[in-house]
């Protein structure tokens, strides 16, 4: 049994390596460009998101919220969102409201606390899933083009793309530094409970100490990137109206986009109709 536990914890630790995080980030950003959601026009999706990201805050009707939740759940499934993101989402939402429920029970509440908590949970979950659909279903390029069409400055949209380009590099660098510590460091033995605590403290300390080499290595690498961006005309594009026009000319609204909007609207109308019935 103990063996199994140690095997299990090892495999969980193994899963949660930097390598895994890196591949999840990439997967999330670019790994699902062939889904229904990714093919939609980013402008349409942003409008769609504005509705499902804002309206649930102001509505308390259970059946309407449930309907919205079901819809965004379907879109999230359609977007093939990476496992890690969904896991973080589930952990976030349910630790929040689950903990409230526990606190309620502890201070003399009973099961009557469930419906109001459920409403809160549904609101948070709907909004989060809508965000997940839009921000991880679309690849960063399309998203930033969409934002640019609505008048966001070019620098913001470039930053989004570039962050996604840099993030894996940053993580790779971080991984390398951690590996160096692992190869040369001398972590405390962690067989006993006290040893485990010390091991944890050691790990945190290493992560903090990794910051210095991480930043320097990344800075060294980005020196070339900065020069290359200059050569490749990044600064010209930022002030040139024609470039913006060329970029945005690639955006087109298709029947699929309209269909998507129509289906969403129909579903919402249906939910409102149901909620007036009951």
């Amino acid at each position, binding site marked *: 049994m103990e063996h199994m536990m140690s095997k299990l914890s090892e495999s969980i630790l193994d899963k949660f390596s930097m390598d895994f995080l890196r591949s999840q980030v990439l997967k999330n950003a670019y790994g699902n460009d062939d889904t229904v959601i990714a093919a939609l026009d980013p402008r349409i999706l942003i409008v769609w998101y504005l509705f499902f990201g804002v309206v649930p805050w102001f509505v308390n009707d259970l059946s309407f919220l449930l309907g919205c939740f079901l819809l965004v759940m379907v879109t999230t499934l359609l977007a093939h969102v990476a496992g890690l993101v969904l896991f973080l989402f589930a952990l976030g939402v349910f630790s929040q409201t689950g903990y409230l429920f526990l606190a309620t029970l502890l201070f003399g509440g009973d099961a009557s606390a469930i419906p109001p908590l459920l409403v809160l949970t549904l609101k948070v979950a709907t909004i989060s899933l809508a965000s997940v659909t839009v921000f991880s279903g679309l690849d960063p390029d399309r998203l930033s083009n969409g934002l640019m069409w609505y008048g966001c400055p070019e620098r913001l949209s470039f930053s989004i793309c570039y962050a996604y380009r840099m993030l894996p590099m940053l993580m790779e660098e971080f991984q390398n530094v951690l590996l160096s510590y692992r190869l040369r460091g001398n972590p405390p033995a962690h067989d006993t409970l006290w040893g485990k605590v010390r091991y944890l403290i050691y790990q945190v300390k290493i992560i903090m100490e990794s910051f210095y080499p991480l930043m320097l290595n990344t800075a060294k*690498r980005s020196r070339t*990137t900065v020069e290359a961006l200059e050569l490749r005309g990044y600064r010209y594009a930022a002030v040139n109206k024609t470039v913006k026009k060329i970029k945005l000319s690639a955006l087109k609204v298709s029947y699929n986009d309209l269909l998507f909007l129509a289906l969403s609207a129909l579903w919402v109308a249906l939910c409102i109709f149901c909620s007036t019935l009951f």
Partner: protein
Amino acid sequence: MNAVEINGLTYSYPGAALPTLTDISLRIEKGDFLAVVGNNGCGKSTLCKVLNGLIPHFITGEFQGEVRVGGASTLDSDVGTLAQKVGYVYQDFENQIVRPTVLDDASYACLNYAFPDYLERGKKALCQCGLEGREEEYIWQLSGGQTHLLALAGAVSLSPDVLILDEPIAQLDPMHADRIYEVLRELNQKHGKTIVVIEHHTEYIADYCRHVLLMKDGQVQWLLPTGEALQHVAELEACNIFPPQVTQAAYRLQKEGKLPSGAPLPTTVEEGRAAFSALRCRLGAAPAPAPRPAGQRAVSFQDVSLSYRSVKGEPRTIFDGLNLDIRKGEKVALIGSNGAGKSTLMKLMVGLLRPQSGTISLFDEPIGAKKAEDLSRQISLVYQNPEEMFIKDSIRADISYAMQVRGLPDWQARTDALLERFQLIKLQDRDGRLMSGGQMRRASLAIGVALEPGILLLDEPTANLDIATRREIVGVLEDMKDIIQTAVIATHDMQLVCQWAERIIVLRGGRVVADGTRDEIFARQDLVDLVGIRPPEIFSMARALDPQALCYTVEEFTNCFQEA
């Protein structure tokens, strides 16, 4: 017409006491294929950055004199205009790529300079650089060589007249290196581009370049046609540039009076055939080192399988049921093309990666059962990229770190001894990242041997180094024989392999396709074709003269081939 004209250029970096470039005057013809050679730190890269206007427009400093590219002075043009005349590919080219997909990146500059046909231009550039059919791929799906071609395509897309490449093949295996140079040759001959490469692989210079420019201490020594330039053996060697091995051999034979003096030295194997035609192979093949008695198993792989997760689709299998033993006392070279699994194999040995199945043992104990501390005393890995080994703010702290945290009683004395041995005393308080390539490599070796591991793994120890530093590294390896009993080097550097290794393991697609001494490996033509490894030039030269000859170094060649 001249593509580039420089008159009386003197330049100092901001805050530097001495100028990096001093009084340079230079003409580069249109359509030339020019190699710039010189010592580390002689100002080659700075000269190239002057041509594309990064100096003085982006990097300031003291700039005197005049640089004209395509007739226009760089002082009067801005970086954007110049970028459309001069394309630049950095040595660390992967940092030059800023977009996620291949076509996106190739057309990025054209989009930024507002060409409405930017996609067509990108496609055309990809085609010219031999990347057609890969437009939709993501950049992390590309191999090192393909990434370099993409960086080149990004520069070519603006259709500049001049292309500058800083050490284009430093990190590539011979097959990929050939590919890059073939593409450059085509750009030069078919599309009339002027090409400037900073290069110290003189074999490639002899094969591809038309002119050679030698720089020394920020000054131009000479600019000569390649054939003539490579005759200046003594002068080149003084600048740590080693002419092709064929040329070196002819130079020595001439000095010994075995070849008529005064005749031009051959620079390629083809020219060598004629030049050495009077010589006959006297000795048989050099006696192969006697097979040493099989020692204890130092590292052993049993049925090891490993696959990586990939962004999309199935995980990529690196090893499938790998079996391999490395015995105590062996000097092993691990060769194979980029992506054959060399680095992964090393990471498995030090326990940084764990196999999905199978066992890896060090001295007959599975590494899973070993404590990390014991492991690091027995085996140590020096990364390909030395920067990744620096985790402290000074070299001294980096070298002592592993000894200090293990509480070794004499760690300070041992750190001093290591600093002494690797000639790092003067640099001990500097941050490793700010040192030169050769210094970084020495420091990373010192870090790697600090715990006196019985097994030392070196990943590409000579990549990006000039020949002198490379010799120094080989010297250090010899020097450390008393501490390091077993050493494994992963490398593309066949001269290093032939000089140093006793056993060569050839990897291809995660499988060991050959394993033996250098005679057993290089004499097999089928293997050379299959894996794309290339024996040192002198070896091919000897075989061209006499199919029975097996010479791996210039010394062996000059001893073996005598007057008939």
